[in-house]
C-alpha cells in the first residue's frame, strides 16, 4: 500500500455549529480595458481567484493578508456590491451569488458591512440621525415617528450621546465616526457583518475600544462576522477562525490554535513573525522575524504554480510548475503548500506530489494514481491528510 493511500476513516461528529455563510470557489476577475475608442478587454485582474470558506453562526472568520491580495473584493462580493465572476455564496442555504437587485433587497437586511474609512463612509451632507435612520426608511421597518427613538437607542448602544443625532459627521472624531458606521450597520439587525478593516484608519489607542465594542455587540446580538484585517495581531482575539489570503487565494485557513501555534504555510509564518507575541515574550522566547522580500506581484499576471513562490524562502522546482492544492491537514486546518510544515520543519519532498500524480519536480508521473485531495471546498472534512505518517487521519 502506497503511503498516499487515503483510508476512509469513520466520520467524526458533525460540526456542532450552524453555518451562516458558505462561500464556494468564489472568483472575481475584473476586466482590464485597453485605451482607445473601442475599449477592448485586454486582460483580467484576478483579484479573487477561487476562495472557499464558511462562517459559523455567532462566530467570526478573520480574513488576513497584505494589501492588494483581494480581501476587500471578497467582502464586497459577500455583500454583493460586486457580482462574482464565478462561484457560490450560500447565505443560510440560499445561493445569492447571482441574485438580481430586486431579489437581493430582502437579503440586504441580513448582511451588512462596516467600512474601512469612516471619513468617507458617512455622507458629509447628512446628519447622524438621517445616516443611522436611512436603513429604517429604506426597509420601512418602523413607522416614521418611531425612527428617531430607534436612532437614539442605536447611538446609545454604540456608546455615543443619543442627543447628538442632529450633528454632522465632521463634528465627530475618527473613532466616533466609526461607531456611527457600526450603528448604521446594526440598524437592520443583520445576521452577518462584513467588517472591512474597521479599525485600520483609526489611532492605535482607539482601535482596541472599537474592537471591544464589536465584540460586545457580537455577544449581545449573536452576529456572525467576516472580519478583514491586514495583520494577524488584530484578529487574534476576535476571530476563532482565520483565513490567510495571498494574491486572490486562501493559502492557509484554520482555527486560532492551528494558525497562531502551528502555522504550516511560509506566508503565514512570515506574517506571524511580525506579530508581537506576548506569550512568547513571557517565556523568554522570541519569534524570529521573517522579512518578506519584494512586493505582491500583479494579480493580472500572477506567478505560475504557487502564487507565493516569488517571495518564498523554501520554494523548489515543483512550486513554479504545479499549483499547490488547499490540503486539509488537521481537524480544522488547511494549507496550500507543497512543503507544509511548522517553521524550520518543512518536509524535503513535496507531500502533495503523489496526491496530484506528479513527481517531486512537478512533471507528470505516469506511475502515480492521482487521488482526491481532501480540503477543496468550504468547511472541513471529517477526515484529513495526516502529515506525520502521510496518510489519512481523523480526530
Amino acid at each position, binding site marked *: 500500500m502506497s503511503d498516499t493511500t487515503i483510508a476512509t476513516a469513520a466520520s467524526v461528529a458533525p460540526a456542532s455549529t450552524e453555518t451562516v455563510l458558505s462561500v464556494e470557489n468564489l472568483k472575481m476577475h475584473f476586466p482590464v480595458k485597453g485605451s482607445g475608442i473601442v*475599449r477592448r478587454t485586454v486582460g483580467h485582474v484576478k483579484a479573487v481567484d477561487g476562495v472557499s470558506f464558511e462562517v459559523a453562526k455567532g462566530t467570526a472568520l478573520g480574513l488576513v493578508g497584505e494589501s492588494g491580495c483581494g480581501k476587500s473584493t471578497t467582502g*464586497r462580493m459577500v*455583500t454583493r*456590491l460586486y457580482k462574482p465572476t464565478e462561484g457560490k455564496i450560500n447565505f443560510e442555504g440560499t445561493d445569492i451569488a447571482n441574485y438580481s437587485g430586486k431579489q*437581493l*433587497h430582502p437579503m*440586504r*437586511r441580513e*448582511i*451588512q*458591512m462596516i*467600512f*474601512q*474609512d469612516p*471619513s*468617507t*463612509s*458617512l*455622507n*458629509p*451632507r*447628512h*446628519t447622524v440621525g438621517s445616516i443611522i435612520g*436611512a*436603513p429604517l426608511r*429604506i*426597509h420601512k421597518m418602523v413607522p416614521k415617528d418611531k425612527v428617531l427613538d430607534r436612532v437614539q437607542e442605536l447611538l446609545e448602544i454604540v*456608546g*455615543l450621546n443619543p442627543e447628538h443625532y*442632529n*450633528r*454632522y459627521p*465632521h*463634528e*465627530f*472624531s*475618527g*473613532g*466616533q465616526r466609526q461607531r456611527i*458606521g457600526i450603528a*448604521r450597520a446594526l440598524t*437592520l439587525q443583520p445576521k452577518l457583518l462584513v467588517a472591512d478593516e474597521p479599525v485600520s484608519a*483609526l*489611532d492605535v489607542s*482607539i482601535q482596541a*475600544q*472599537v474592537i*471591544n*465594542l464589536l465584540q*460586545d455587540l457580537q455577544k*449581545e446580538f449573536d452576529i456572525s462576522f467576516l472580519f478583514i484585517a491586514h495583520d494577524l495581531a488584530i484578529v487574534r482575539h476576535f476571530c476563532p477562525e482565520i483565513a490567510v489570503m495571498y494574491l486572490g487565494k486562501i493559502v492557509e485557513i484554520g482555527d486560532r490554535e492551528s494558525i497562531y501555534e502551528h502555522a504550516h504555510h511560509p506566508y503565514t509564518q512570515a506574517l506571524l513573525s511580525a506579530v508581537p507575541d506576548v506569550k512568547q515574550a513571557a517565556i523568554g522566547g522570541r519569534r524570529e522575524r521573517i522579512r518578506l522580500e519584494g512586493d505582491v506581484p500583479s494579480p493580472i499576471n500572477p506567478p505560475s504554480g504557487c502564487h507565493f513562490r516569488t517571495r518564498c524562502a523554501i520554494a523548489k522546482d515543483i512550486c513554479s510548475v504545479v499549483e499547490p492544492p488547499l490540503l486539509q491537514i488537521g481537524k480544522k486546518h488547511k494549507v496550500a503548500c507543497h512543503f507544509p510544515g511548522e517553521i524550520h520543519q518543512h518536509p524535503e519532498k513535496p507531500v502533495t506530489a503523489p496526491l496530484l500524480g506528479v513527481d517531486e519536480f512537478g512533471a507528470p508521473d505516469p506511475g502515480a494514481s492521482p487521488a482526491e485531495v481532501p480540503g477543496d471546498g468550504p468547511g472541513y472534512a471529517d477526515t484529513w491528510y495526516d502529515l506525520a505518517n502521510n496518510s489519512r487521519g481523523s480526530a
Partner: protein
Amino acid sequence: MSESATVFEGEELSGGSTPPSAPGEAKAIAGKSPMKLAMMRLRKDKPTMVSLTVVILVVVAAVLAPLLVKMGVLDPFSYNQNLLDANTIPEGGWSGASGAHPLGVEPGTGRDAMSRFWYGITFSLMIALTAAMLSVIIGAVVGIIAGFSGGWVDAILSRFTDLTLSFPSTLMLLALSSLGLKLVQQVTGLPNGPLAQGIYCTVVLAIFGWTSTARVVRGQVLSIKQREFVEAAVVLGASKPRIYFKEILPNLWAPLLVLVTLMMPAYISAEAALSYLQVSVKPPTPTLGNVLADSLKYAQVDPFYFFMPAILIATIVISFNLLGDGLRDALDPKGDR
C-alpha cells in the same frame, strides 16, 4: 460595554483622532451643517464679501430697471438733440452730465446714458443667468448620467460632449442667426423683438455651453461614487433614485453653485460680444454689448462716455469671478473636515 464606554469619555475629551481642528474650535462649530460652515468661512473672506455685495447690487439694479423704465424714472429711448452741439457731441464736460442726466447723454442721439447702461444690465444679466442655469442643468444631467452609469452610456455621452465642444459655435451662431431667430419666433409665437432675440441668444449659449459642466460633474460623480458612503447605501438596499438624489446630489450642489457663478462672467462677456456682432438683442434696446458698441465710436471725442460701459462690464465680470472663486474656496469639501 463598560470598558468601551469609559474610554469613550477620554476620546470625547481629547477630540479623538480628528485631524487639524483644535478642541476649542470643535466646540464652536458644534451642530453646524457643512453649508453653515461654508457661510461662516465666506463671511470672513473680505474680497468675496465685497464682490458679493456688488453682485447683489447689480442683480437688484437689473430687477428694478424695467420697473423704473415703466414708471418713467429711467428713459433709455427718448432723443435729446437739444443737449448736443453741432457735431452731435454732448455739450459741457463729462458727456454733459447734469441733475437730469447724472452720467450725461449719448453722443449722436442725446439719449440718457445712465438709463441706457442701467437698462442694459437687465437684458445682459437675464440672458447670462438663464443661459448659465440652462447650461448647468443640461451639463449636470448629462454629467450625472454619464458618471453614474459608466460603461457604454458614459462612452456615448462623453463622445457627444467632446463633439459639442469641438463645434464652431460662434460661427454657427452668426451663420444661423436669422434662421434661428425665425425658429424662435415660430416656436414661441413672439414678434421679432428684444425678447425673441434674447431667447435665441440664450438658447444658443446654453446649447454650446453645457460641456464644461458635464465634464466637471461627471468627474465629481465618479469621485463621489468611489466614496464608501455610496457603497454603504447600496449595501443598505437603497434604490437607484435614492442614491442619485439623496446621496450624490447633495454633494453636487456646492460645485454646481460655483459653476453657475463662474459661468456668469463668461456669459456676460459672450453676450456683450454677441450684441456687438448684432446677433443678440438688437438696438435700440440697450444691452451691455450694445452700449459698448455705441461707445466705441466716440473714443476720441467723448472719453467719459467711451469708458463708462467698459468699466461697468469689467466691474460686473470681475465681481462674478471673485465671487465664484470665493465660493469655491468656502465650499471646498476638503475644508469640511
